[in-house]
């Protein structure tokens, strides 16, 4: 019984770590910019393929592949701001949220199809992964799962330090909490938006690498994590980072438990049931607060 419980916990924590990473990138952008980045899935995929290209195609060391996924993701986020978001922000602020959502749907489709053209539709194996397991009596801990949880914990700590302790992080949080007041303090909000999208892109890059190391590389790789990330964001309350991480781990553990007890096909419907229930009984999410907007 204990080994089953540990197996559920390992599966739950690993997928929870991946969901948390996907959710943080999405939530950060929503919280500070009011932007639902529908291209986030494609940015995840791009990260996975970038690591593959650096490690397999170019034959560079694993560390370069890992760093490459971060850098390419960050560049994609930066370009998304420069080419699309910056221009949409110049227009009517009231229509920004809907315009940017539609625009990023287009960016996501274009990016996914570009990856399909470049690499083909056949699944590829992500070379950056760890094999083997640590066996402790009846319990077997796969190194890959341990690596993912470790990397995510380190990244979360770095993100928390960045947002909590640095001048840049304070500017991001200030912009998220009151954009006009942040501007009055001298914060250049356009620069903050650029930084947020670069940071979110970098997180998406690593997340794509991690997800592909657990499964396989394919052009729609990022779609499932992004869908789950949306669920986590809604359950936590859009834009609430600590809440999003808590929701990611909580729901991943629930999913792993349901999959074990009722079968794999019931995992996702359970998450959907939870999100519908939250939308009915707590529309602002567990950790969110209702906002009243003057129309």
């Amino acid at each position, binding site marked *: 019984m204990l080994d089953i419980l540990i197996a559920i916990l390992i599966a739950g924590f690993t997928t929870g770590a991946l969901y948390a990473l996907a959710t943080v990138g999405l939530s950060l952008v929503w919280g500070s910019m009011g932007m639902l980045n529908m291209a986030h899935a494609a940015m995840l995929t791009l990260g996975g393929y970038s690591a593959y290209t650096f490690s397999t195609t170019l034959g560079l060391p694993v560390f370069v592949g890992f760093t490459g996924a971060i850098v390419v993701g960050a560049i994609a986020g930066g370009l998304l701001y420069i080419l699309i978001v910056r221009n949409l922000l110049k227009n009517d602020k009231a229509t920004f949220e809907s315009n940017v959502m539609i625009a990023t749907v287009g960016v996501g489709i274009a990016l996914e199809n570009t990856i399909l053209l470049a690499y083909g539709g056949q699944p590829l194996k992500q070379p950056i992964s760890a094999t083997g397991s640590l066996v402790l009596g009846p319990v077997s801990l796969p190194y890959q799962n341990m690596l993912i949880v470790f990397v995510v914990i380190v990244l979360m700590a770095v993100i928390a330090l960045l947002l909590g302790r640095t001048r840049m992080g304070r500017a991001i*949080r200030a912009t998220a909490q009151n954009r006009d*007041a942040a*501007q*009055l303090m*001298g914060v*250049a909000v356009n620069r903050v938006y650029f930084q947020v999208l670069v940071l979110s892109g970098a997180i998406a890059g690593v997340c794509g690498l991690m997800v592909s190391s657990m499964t396989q590389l394919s052009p729609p790789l990022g779609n499932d994590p992004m869908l789950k990330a949306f669920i986590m964001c809604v359950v936590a309350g859009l834009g609430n980072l600590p809440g999003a991480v808590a929701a990611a781990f909580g729901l991943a553990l629930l999913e792993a438990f349901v999959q074990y007890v009722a079968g794999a096909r019931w995992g996702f419907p359970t998450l959907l049931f939870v999100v519908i229930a939250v939308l009915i009984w707590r529309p602002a999410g567990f950790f969110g607060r209702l906002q009243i907007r003057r129309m």
Partner: protein
Amino acid sequence: MSNAAKPPLLRLANVVSGYSELKVLKGISFDVAAGDFITVVGPNGHGKSTLLKTISGLVPLTSGAISINGGPTLAKPHAIAALGIAHVPQGDMLFPEMSVLENLLMGAYLAPSKAEIDRRLDEVYALLPKLSDRRNQIASSLSGGERRMVGIGRGLMMGGQILLIDEPSLGLAPLIIEQIYGVIAELSKSGRTILLVEENPARVADLANHLHLLDDGAIVWSGPPAELLARDELLTTYLGG
């Protein structure tokens, strides 16, 4: 008020601004010199807050010019803040999920060094000791008066040349209003340049050295506060007695 040799700290020349098609300010002109305490009074909804928001760049200028230290008109609020305009907005506009200290540190976002930030923080704590006691408290959990104090403290942390204060008494109990105006009086005594908007001219009678009466987006009278308070016909016509 204006100095012939040196440009004024702030000059508004025929300023017109508003929201989309709605014109709120209809040609405002006045100067603010170093050390001045200027107050703009007027009834609610006649453009007082819009005036300060236009100076700090939150509301775009439709026409006219706003010059700081004789420089060109700027559009971006962050660039205007960098020139020394410290705006304490109406309703405080604090960062609700940050602590009092973090709110104050955001005021010093453009400060050149850590030593300068510490110096300003000491100055603010000396003037507003309650903020030191509350430094780790989350802003959204403060009372209305404490929030107003944080707003003023954050404005002071900017170390600006001109402090724009928007209706500091709004929504506060009489005792708290007295405390807030006590702090503003201290600031004025220390030589700070202040541009304050207020509905009730009696509150600034002993503080302001010059007063502008704003009605429907235009200045209809200017002069010393005592003179306005002595003119019943102006008070009755524009401020409802």
